[in-house]
């Protein structure tokens, strides 16, 4: 899935990928898609939890070309 904003959080430890997401998701318009590529295993739980806490939509997970998981978030507000 092509995202409107790609956040490369490879190598970052928790909570940095979620901090990056929290700081930058407003760069896409409402309805836009943000992808967080993260090697940190906590992101698998924490990105969906962030979406729930911040009222955003968690779309799912798919691998990037290098196999690193990308967590997809749709800006809802």
């Amino acid at each position, binding site marked *: 899935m092509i995202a409107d904003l790609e956040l490369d959080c490879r190598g970052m430890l928790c909570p940095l990928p979620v901090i990056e997401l929290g700081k930058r998701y407003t760069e896409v318009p409402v309805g836009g898609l943000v992808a967080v590529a993260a090697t940190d295993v*906590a992101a698998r739980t924490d990105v969906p939890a962030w979406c729930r806490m911040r009222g955003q939509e968690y779309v799912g997970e798919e691998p990037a070309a290098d196999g690193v998981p990308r967590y997809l978030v749709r800006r809802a507000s």
Partner: protein
Amino acid sequence: MTNAADGPPVPPSAYLDAASSEPLHPAARDTLLAALDRGYADPRRLHGPGRDARLLLDNARAVVAECLGVRPDEVSFTHSGTEAVHRGLLGLRAGRPWPGSAVAYSAVEHSAVLQALEWTRSEDHVALPVDRLGRVTGAVPAGLAAVAVQSANHEVGTLQPLDHLDLPDRTALFVDASASMGRLPLPDRWDVLAGSAHKWGGPAGVGVLVVRKGTFWANAFPGDDPLDESATGFPNVPAALAAAAALRAVVEERDEVNARQFALIDRIRAAAAAVPDVEVVGDPVDRLPHLVTFSCLYVDGEALVTELDRRGYGVASGSACTASTLTPSRVLEAMGVLTHGNVRVSLTRDTTDEQVDGFLAALPQVVRDIRAEAGL
């Protein structure tokens, strides 16, 4: 530099990690000191000091049985709660007279349960999912040797609905009761139970293993005493007696202590939830009286624990950066709640209102400072 007499009042510091280990109960301390000089001999010997040690050990067993509402001959002492879990659970596999050696376990069990199952080198074991509150929800498949479900969760405090679990016939129920033993009555349903004395204010190094009469259970480890299958080497008689004394005291005090702790935890839950972007997790009502866990968005768990410790508050955390494995808490993961910025607060029997006030006054500032450092 000012001293406490003329400076502003210093908020009281507090050890808020009773769920890792409760300080020794005064009743245990007195008993331990008295028993140290008496309980040295081998309780299997027929001489006077041996008979004396046997008397003390039987007394410890009788007191524990009475406090738990089980039979004395169902109770054995192990050298830790972990050992009680390993022997208790694996003994159900070893003693099962029917085919099937796989075990189902709730996804939020203590690592002692998971490590016992990993040790079997079988890939047939089944994890049962939990809901957002940490309550086991999955259906238990038939043909299993055992199901392992804790009485209460050690990280988030949620009580498991053990008496309402739908269990197929011939499925033994192993209950790790370490988080609740002494604090709460046991559930009605169990075949084998494990507990750990230092979690209720007894000394470390004493586990309790209870195998219900008539359960198919066999020692899964090298044997020790042919007369007592669940024996685990030379018993620590003074520590077992002190553990029993602490358990009796805790059971006698628990109506008063639990009510006080439950109300303090309610206050902490409300105050933590009022800090922006903090999620308080676990069941708010069907829970352990003394424990609460919450997670702070955008906050590094290690920084949070370190800053709270600097202000005198000792808390635990399930965040990855605070774990030796650098992986987040499996419990929080299984519940689908935020794993970073995690704090577990657990009260000792004498935690005061003033200590909780001090902690709650420090918390929002600490969270704010750590977020500000991250540029939020």
